[in-house]
């Protein structure tokens, strides 16, 4: 466990070593939140009501902030792992005394944590100015736990896509489509509450809703029953995707051919 903690710390410090670069990247959330605010401000204004589908403008902006923080802060491991598979550098990671998947998990967490923190602070400041204060502090833990679950689900998907390089020549299309499924079926750009009922049912039966809608929804509408529902859904999908990941990794190892040094 100590070795993974050390890997996590190294990557955390590495991320913090370039504050200007990280701050510039955080600028993206300002662009997105500005556009979202314009869209929803006009939508609420034109509809002449304060509440749409149970959400106020303030709710929706904080929902979108958390969703964007997850999306922009999640690890981009698919591309890294697929490159390691394609150029053979995975061989240098496999002969070390650690588990490859836990190593990637430690790296991903080390990179994500400061990035997500900064995105939330930068974006949150803007949202506070535009739409009003965040949800009450005592409600935050209800969103924090599903946030970890959402991050782990993203990690599983990313690793699975990266390991797909063992069988597919190019994995980028998988990554694009996975991202768009998260956008649509995860309710990242438009909360699922605004979807037709049948589509809400479809989205909630898939893992994507637990990666975005779940934590973001709990952040603005804390509810113990919803919390239990989201967390149990996350545990179920983590078991499924985690199992698939272990299987894909062991299959990939059997296909791995290392020539020379």
């Amino acid at each position, binding site marked *: 466990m100590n070795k993974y903690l050390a890997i996590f710390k190294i990557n955390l410090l590495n991320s913090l070593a370039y504050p200007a670069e990280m701050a510039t990247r955080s600028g993206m959330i300002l662009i997105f939140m500005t*556009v979202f605010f314009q869209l929803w401000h006009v939508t609420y204004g*034109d509809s002449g009501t304060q509440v749409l589908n149970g959400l106020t403008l303030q709710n929706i902006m904080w929902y979108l902030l958390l969703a964007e923080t997850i999306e922009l802060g999640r690890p981009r491991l698919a591309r890294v792992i697929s490159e390691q598979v394609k150029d053979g550098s995975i061989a240098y990671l496999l002969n070390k005394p650690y588990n490859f998947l836990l190593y990637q998990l430690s790296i991903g967490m080390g990179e994500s944590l400061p990035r997500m923190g900064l995105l939330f602070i930068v974006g949150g400041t803007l949202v506070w100015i535009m739409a009003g204060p965040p949800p009450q502090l005592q409600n935050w833990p209800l969103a924090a736990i599903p946030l970890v679950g959402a991050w782990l689900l993203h990690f599983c998907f990313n690793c699975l896509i990266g390991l797909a390089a063992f069988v597919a020549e190019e994995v980028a*299309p998988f990554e694009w489509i996975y991202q*768009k499924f998260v956008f649509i079926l995860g309710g990242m750009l438009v909360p699922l509450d605004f979807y037709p009922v049948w589509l809400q049912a479809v989205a909630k039966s898939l893992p994507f809703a637990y990666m975005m809608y779940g934590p973001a929804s709990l952040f603005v509408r804390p509810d113990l029953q919803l919390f239990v529902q989201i967390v149990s859904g996350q545990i179920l999908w983590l078991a499924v995707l985690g199992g698939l990941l272990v299987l894909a990794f062991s299959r990939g190892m059997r296909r791995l051919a290392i020539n020379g040094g």
Partner: protein
Amino acid sequence: MKELKFLIALWKTNLASAMEYRVAFLSQSIGMILNDGVYFLVWIIFFDRFKDIRGWQLTDMFMVFGVSAGAFGLAGMLFGNAFNLGDIIVNGRLDYYLSLPRSTLLHVLASRAVPSGFGDFLYGFISYFASGQFSLDGFGRFIFALILATVVFVSFLVIVQSLAFWLGTGGALTGVAINAMITFALYPITLFNKTAKLILLIIIPAAFMGAVPAGFVRNFSWSSLELMILAAVGFLALALFLFHLGLRRYESGSAIQVEV
């Protein structure tokens, strides 16, 4: 004319190179069409619920996506290095192009094609036809607007990434600039107030990649045409000026580079 022949030769080489990896080329192109199509579902869901946003409807979004995706794809297909010019400058990889007797900027930009660009380009046409506003003259305007939007987009990328000559780094800023351009281009311009619209016309010229050309395709107007030509010429001139000004500051790393 000489430069055009050179460009065509580069594009042919890029195409031949892409065809060498047919499966990757096809999977990226088809993947990108699916990616764009799935992304557009957000607007179908949104307009199914709200119908109209200050005069903008789903057909307008089809048109905006048509021009924006088409221009993004065309830029990637023909001038693929426009997306990583900053890294080329910072890593001293301009040496190779400087040593050859051709326009450095043109050569570096056209030396790479982004395979997924073909998918974006095709999706642009799919989205235009799906808008249900096809007419022969409208299609002509669509092609013309696509070319001008591509010029503005590539010029904007060159302007932003030429800052790498002074800043010594470019990756993060480029990412933000591309995201800003695409994000603002793909949203209804009627959402923004006058100041924001002015920014989208002058500082981040996203309006010239989305709303302005889309409006021109729908209904011909001399003022839109003039505005688009002015933007294309203006941003291109600024891109050429900044790149060549920066080039004077360029320092070679004397590294051995292999260009494939």
